[in-house]
Each structure stands twice: as structure tokens, then as C-alpha cells.
């Protein structure tokens, strides 16, 4: 698969001296579904903000589709990499849901009738159609979060970075949103999700990157990372209960480690039938 993002020896120091990233190396390939996890303040958001040029390296290099991000504008990069902010209010400006979603494609110079189609489609996908005329500030936080995702998707980025999609959403809404990202992934989009929700990570991500103190502590397939319980603890991460239960019952059960409740129920069922 094509390599789309390459990070080499990346350091980021904020004004005032906080070292948010301290030497990160990483490559991301087309079509991956990656979760970036780690303690509050471990550098997750700082890292992903480099992927569309919102932040530039203090030291080291970030290449997006082969382009050095210090040599490209954020405008240019955000056509490739869509970034949904952690706090939706940092990106919502328009007076209606329609205009908010149309804003990106308009800026990119899409024709108005195509924009209409895109907005309609995106709002349907995210179940926001009924709010098309609503002022965004009238929406609850969960809906604003979904609107933020919709307005980024309208630009049809190849890579979608979503920074904590679960804040303010209930479980059903979280699952819907991540299922939507999963469908995009199956259509070939690359998905990068920053989150603290380990249940969602286990259910959907294919690869997990664990950050600690501005560095990468673990990077591997979801199953491998989630069952590295001791190392995760160092990063303030606790795997979901399904992993903890499976791990402690491992001597009694056959089959590969489970990441979903259905898988573990099946393994226990099989063991009971033996």
C-alpha cells in the first residue's frame, strides 16, 4: 500500500517551552484505520495537527503524500487530510447547518449544484438532514460534533483525522459515528482516530499507536497492543473489560484473543460445549 504520511524525528515545542513531542517516527499507509491513544497531555493532538500542517515541526520532518509540510500551505494539505477538532466549537462558524457543511467545498471552488448534492449526501449519512436550516449553536454538543465531521467530509479528504469523536455523545451516537468512519475506511479512506474510548478502539481500529510523554510507546495491530496490559498501564491506558476478562480466562479458552463481547461470548460458549 502507498505510504501517505511519514514522520521523521518529530519534535514539537510550544511557545513557553512545553515539549509536546519528543522524537516521533511513524509511517501511515493508504487505507489504514488507526487509533492514537495515550494519557491526557501525552501529545496525541499535537501529533495529528502536524498531519494537515496546522502545526509545523520544531525539529524533524513530516511528509504528507511526499510533500514536506513546511513547504505547503494548510489550505493545500487540508484538501488531502481533513481534521476534525476535539472541540467542535473551534471549527463551527456559520449561521446554518447547510452553510457550515457547504463552507469547505465552496472554498475549494466546487460548483454550487455539486455542493448541494454533497451537503445533502453528507447530512443524510450523519443523520443531520432534519437540522439543515438550524443555527449550529442551537444544537447539542453531540450534534455539533457530528456537524463538525460532516463539514470536513464534505471536502472529501482522502485521510480523515478525528480528534476525540466521542465527547458529549452517548454510546449509540458514538457507535454510529465510528461505524460511519468504518464504512469510509472500507471505501478506501484512511482513518486516524484520537480517543480515550478503548471499547471503540478495540471494536474498530486495525492498528493502535500508544503515546507517552511525547513519544510512541507501542505501535502495532490492535489485538497485540490491547493485550499488552502491563505496558499500557504505563501510558495510563486500561484495556476494555472484554480484554481483561479474556486475558484472565486465557488458560481455559481456545482461539485468538477477543476484542468484542460477541467474540468472547462465542469462545466461552464453545468451551462450555467441550
Amino acid at each position, binding site marked *: 500500500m502507498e505510504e501517505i504520511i511519514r514522520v521523521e524525528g518529530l519534535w514539537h515545542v510550544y511557545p513557553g517551552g512545553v515539549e509536546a513531542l519528543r522524537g516521533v517516527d511513524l509511517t501511515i499507509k493508504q487505507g489504514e484505520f488507526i487509533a492514537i491513544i495515550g494519557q491526557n497531555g501525552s501529545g496525541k*493532538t499535537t501529533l495529528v495537527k502536524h498531519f494537515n500542517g496546522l502545526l509545523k515541526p520544531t525539529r524533524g520532518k513530516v511528509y504528507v503524500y511526499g510533500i514536506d509540510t513546511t513547504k505547503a500551505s494548510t489550505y493545500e494539505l487540508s484538501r488531502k487530510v481533513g481534521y476534525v477538532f476535539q472541540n467542535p466549537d473551534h471549527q463551527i462558524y456559520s449561521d446554518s447547518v447547510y452553510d457550515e457543511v457547504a463552507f469547505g467545498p465552496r472554498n475549494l471552488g466546487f460548483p454550487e449544484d455539486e455542493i448541494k448534492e454533497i451537503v445533502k449526501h453528507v447530512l443524510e449519512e450523519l443523520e443531520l438532514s432534519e437540522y439543515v436550516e438550524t443555527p449550529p449553536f442551537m444544537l447539542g454538543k453531540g450534534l455539533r460534533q457530528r456537524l463538525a465531521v460532516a463539514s470536513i467530509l464534505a471536502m472529501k479528504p482522502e485521510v480523515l483525522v478525528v480528534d476525540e469523536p466521542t465527547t458529549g455523545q452517548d454510546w449509540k451516537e458514538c457507535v454510529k459515528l465510528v461505524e460511519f468512519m468504518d464504512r469510509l475506511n472500507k471505501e478506501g479512506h484512511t482513518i486516524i482516530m484520537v480517543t480515550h474510548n478503548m471499547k471503540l478502539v478495540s471494536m474498530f481500529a486495525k492498528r493502535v499507536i500508544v503515546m507517552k510523554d511525547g513519544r510512541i510507546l507501542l505501535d502495532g495491530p490492535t489485538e497485540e497492543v490491547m493485550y499488552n496490559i502491563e505496558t499500557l498501564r504505563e501510558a495510563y491506558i486500561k484495556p476494555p473489560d472484554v480484554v481483561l476478562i479474556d486475558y484472565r480466562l486465557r488458560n481455559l479458552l481456545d482461539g485468538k484473543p477477543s476484542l468484542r463481547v460477541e467474540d468472547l461470548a462465542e469462545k466461552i460458549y464453545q468451551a462450555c460445549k467441550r
Partner: protein
Amino acid sequence: MEPAIEIRNVTFKYRRAEKPSLININLTVYRGEFIGIIGPTGAGKTTLCLTMVGIVPNILKGDFTGEVVTAGMKTTEHEVSEISQKVGMTMQDPESQLLMPDVEREIAFGPENLGLPRDEIRRRIDYALKVVGLEEFRSRHPFLMSGGQKQKVAVASSLAMLPEIMILDEPTSELDPIGTEEVFKTVRKLKAEGKTIVMVEHKTELLSVFSDRIIVMNEGRIIESGPTRKILSDVELLKKIGVDPPQATQIAYLLKKRGINLDKFPLTVDEAVEIFSEIVKGE
């Protein structure tokens, strides 16, 4: 048992809203209890919390009927500022509540407004920072902190008021898993000191360990309430309203549906390991 919060026949509709956010709510929270409130977005959980401190209907106005008595004060007859001396509330969105240029001054804000002496304020800041584990961040600007750290600052500010009752509206929504557990452990400590806790929370795995009683809300109503075990074992009810039951319970539910005999549903990891190893070994 002595009531800490009494809500009688409360119905409330925000000004300009089409539908009421709370419909005929009756609830008594007893002193020293830890109550969890669960339910989907828009169920009325936050409005219920705002009602407990009198923000609804004294500041956020609308059509209000019924009566709320919190820490002995009828909320419509007392100023919110007066009620807040006994009741600490942490809001869902910490940013909306942080005002000061550094953490220490943020936490001092409430106690200073009470006109407390300097060394008392200092003691309270130290206490609050220690409880939430932010001692190293006392001079950090809240804007330079992560979402989760801000959430801890909001909890600390509330703690510095030494309230009798703490109302926490999704206090862990932006925290990492261990940070989340720490908040729950902190809250348990506060409960052990005799404080009353009301917490809106989606994380049923944690409520299963910590809360005494759970209230289930949907579309402005309390649709179910009872001891934590009884409510969280009701997988079908929770799934129906979009709340994710504890994973241990879900596994048991799936096994039972396939004909495996289970007398008791586990809620926690420890219980699950015990129950499932018994059935696998055929004991």
C-alpha cells in the same frame, strides 16, 4: 436516612423550547449516597443537575412546576450563590467554567468569593490539587492544558468549596482510562467523608463498581431507578435507550440467550472471571 436532595413533581420547559426537558420528576437523594444518572443525549440529565443547584429555574428560566429542596434549601427561595456554598457542580464542558489565567487562581476563585482567610484558601488549594493529582500544574494556564486536565481543574475548583453535595455532569468524558478511574476513586473518597454524590456518566463499567443506585432517564422522564446491580443487569432496557451495559454483563446476556445456565449476571471483571470460569469448568 436524611435526604440531601428532594425533587417533587418537577416539570420544566426551557423558554422557547417546544417540549419540556423534565417531565414529572420525583427523586430523593439521601445523604452519603452515590447516585449515577444514565440515559441518552437529550434525556434531561444535565437539566436535572441544573435543577438541583437552582440554576434551573433561577438563572435558566422557563416554565417550572414542582419543588426542589437541596441541602435544606428550597431552590426557588434561595440564590444560586447561596446554594453553591453547599453544593459543588462540575459541568460537562470544563472550558465554559474556567476563567482564570492559572490553575491556582482558578481554584482559589470560589473560596476567595466566600471571603475566607488567606491561609485557609491556600490549604484548600493544596487539598484540591492533591485530590485530583495536579500539584505540578498549579501555575499552568488552563488554555495550555489538555481537555482531560481541564476537566480535573474543574473538579478541583468545585472541591475547594468543600461542598456537602457534589454534582458531576460527565466529569470524565475527556479523561484517559486511568484518569477516569482516579476521578471515580476520588469521588469514592469524598463519599467516605460523608459527601453526597450525583454523577451523570455513560461508563457503566465504572458505575457498576462505585455507585449505590442508578437513575435511568429517557425523553425527560425517569424511566427506571434502583440498586446498581438491578439496573445494570437489565441489558435489554439499556440497549433499547442506547446505553452500553457493562461488557461483563453483555457477555453473560449473550451466553444466556444461547442456553447457558447463569444464576447471576456479572457486572465487573472480577465477577465475570469467577462466574465464567465456573461454567467453563462445569462447576
